[in-house]
């Protein structure tokens, strides 16, 4: 990827984010009721309301209103949550790290598990294991994260209760943290009992999010590997005495990983969306769980803040994927 490509991508990203902001703005303006009433605490006086009305320029036309609203958004001023009576940015700052840790754990699990299974499947091609693997993977592909989460609740929470069913950490351990990235902090500061507890809480939501991703990685990567394995350079390497596992890992994998990576990026963004429901099921205190509470409470400032945060992450991930894909494939740089 060249510098101009990157600039182009960044420009498109800003444009898309602007589109998302416009849609959020419009949607929240269709909602019946006075937007001001949604943004203030119920204890506000009529004078407060008038001041806010002037501040948001609600007497102005829609484009000006959007301008003011958008400038506030750029400054990170999303207003005050109605249901929690706290600054929206502050609430997001508390919850986002939990969601990010979960999403990245699920991503790592999905890619590793999928990668290992695809590699084993490639090594086992032309054996009976191969079609069996494809069949099982087909079933896995049909099961969405929501159903996985519920099945896991049942299997690992009730019938064979090895992992805690809800929450992020044992409440007794959570008071020691300085940041909201509990997992990273506990690892860096050597609080291994807290780390173990965090992992135990994370296993089930991580599996629920990661298993569908793993299934997709298996299918895409296996197809790409099969294609790469019949190339002449693999044949030559085999003649030179390279072991089957090295043939797959060293010769085929790097050429096969491109489409998988792009797809993983797309799936990762879906997975971030999936955290909403999975966090709910496991009462995991992340951004998604809070989003559903916000919707149930019709807490519009909070909803708006969360949606824009998710949108920004979504777009950021897409840019990162493009960058990594360009870096992994040396040909892309030349033709690109």
């Amino acid at each position, binding site marked *: 990827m060249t510098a101009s490509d990157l600039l182009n991508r960044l420009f498109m990203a800003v444009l*898309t984010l602007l*589109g998302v902001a416009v849609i959020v703005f419009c949607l929240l303006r269709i909602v019946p009721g006075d937007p001001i009433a949604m943004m203030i605490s119920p204890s506000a006086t009529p004078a407060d309301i008038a001041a806010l009305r002037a501040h948001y320029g609600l007497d102005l036309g829609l484009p000006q209103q959007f301008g003011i609203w958008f400038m506030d958004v750029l400054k990170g001023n999303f207003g005050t949550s109605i249901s929690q009576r706290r600054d929206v940015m502050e609430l997001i700052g508390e919850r986002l790290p939990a969601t990010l840790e979960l999403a990245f754990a699920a991503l790592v699990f999905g890619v590793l598990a999928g990668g290992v299974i695809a590699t084993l499947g490639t090594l086992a091609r032309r054996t009976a294991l191969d079609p069996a693997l494809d069949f099982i993977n087909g079933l896995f592909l049909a099961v969405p994260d929501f159903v996985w989460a519920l099945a896991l609740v049942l299997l690992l929470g009730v019938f064979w209760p090895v992992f805690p069913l809800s929450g992020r950490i044992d409440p007794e351990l959570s008071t020691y943290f300085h940041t909201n990235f509990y997992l990273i902090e506990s690892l860096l500061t050597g609080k291994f009992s807290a780390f173990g507890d965090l992992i135990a809480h994370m296993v089930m939501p991580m599996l629920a999010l990661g298993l569908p991703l793993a299934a997709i990685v298996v299918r895409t990567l296996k197809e790409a590997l099969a294609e790469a394995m019949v190339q002449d350079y693999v044949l030559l390497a085999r003649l030179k005495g390279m072991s089957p596992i090295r043939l797959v890992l060293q010769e085929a994998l790097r050429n096969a990983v491109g489409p998988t990576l792009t797809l993983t990026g797309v799936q990762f963004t879906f997975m*971030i969306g999936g955290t909403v429901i999975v966090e*709910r099921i496991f009462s995991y205190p992340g951004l998604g769980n809070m989003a559903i509470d916000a*919707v149930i409470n019709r807490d519009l400032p909070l909803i708006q803040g969360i949606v824009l945060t998710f949108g920004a992450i979504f777009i950021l991930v897409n840019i990162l994927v493009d960058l990594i894909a360009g870096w992994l494939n040396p040909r892309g740089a030349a033709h690109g």
Partner: protein
Amino acid sequence: MAEIVTTTADAPVPLRSLPMKTIKPLLREPRVVIAGGFLILLLLIAIFAPYIAPKDPLEQDLMLGNMPPVTSPGAEPGYYLGTDDLGRDVLSRVLYGSRIALTVAFVAASLSAIIGTLMGLAAGWYGGWADRIISRLVDIWMAFPPVLLSVLLVAVLGSGLHSVIAAIVIIDWTRFCRVVRAETMAQARLDYVMAAETIGFSRSHILWREILPNVAPVLIALVSLEMGIAVIVEAILSFVGLSLSSDIPTWGGMIAQGRQMIHQGWWVFVFPLIALFATVLAFNQLGNGLRKALDPVMRR
């Protein structure tokens, strides 16, 4: 998911000659037969639920709360799958739950398909401005995480069955639009379209009578897949309490209820989950089977 863009390389088989010629290969595809059979059975259950269900799904009997299924000791006769905490019959509620699930599946998938197909045909066949505007719209749509968009939409539209269906349609029309657009463009390049043009058929005549029948196979498979997605989305929204009021039995609502009291009785949780899983799997396998069976290239 991979893009389901398939192209008939030569001599397409129009769907007009549908009856036996098209149905036969469908019946040879086991996934279509098994999943289709299951879904027909489910449809019959949904239609005749009042006659099949052993109890009234709403009837509470607090004396009979949390009864286990018949296989467990201490079961109450007549309550085959046990009762929930309010003493309502789980079997009857699961059977009635199929009504909401299938209603949402059929209505939401059909509406998404109609809107998406019209947009896709317009973009793919007429091109130019129509294509540019529609494609840009699809791009912006794709920048939203779907689950989040549905939650946002339900927040705006309010909860309820209509909002759920509207949210699914508003989000998922793009799936149809993208595939139909690509397929239409591929078909438009084929010789039979040129032949129709030289005969002097009008553009719209060619679109409806020549192109659409050839896009239809892909579309049918996609509708089936979309029905599975709609069932899941409805279940998710019921689960978080944004779909229907809790006295109407839905699988998602039952699962949420069962999740709360999972340590008291697993059966309230498990049976609607099995129903949900089987239904989603059936729509998914039917869709994949149809795609394979109807695709002239893969069939050859």
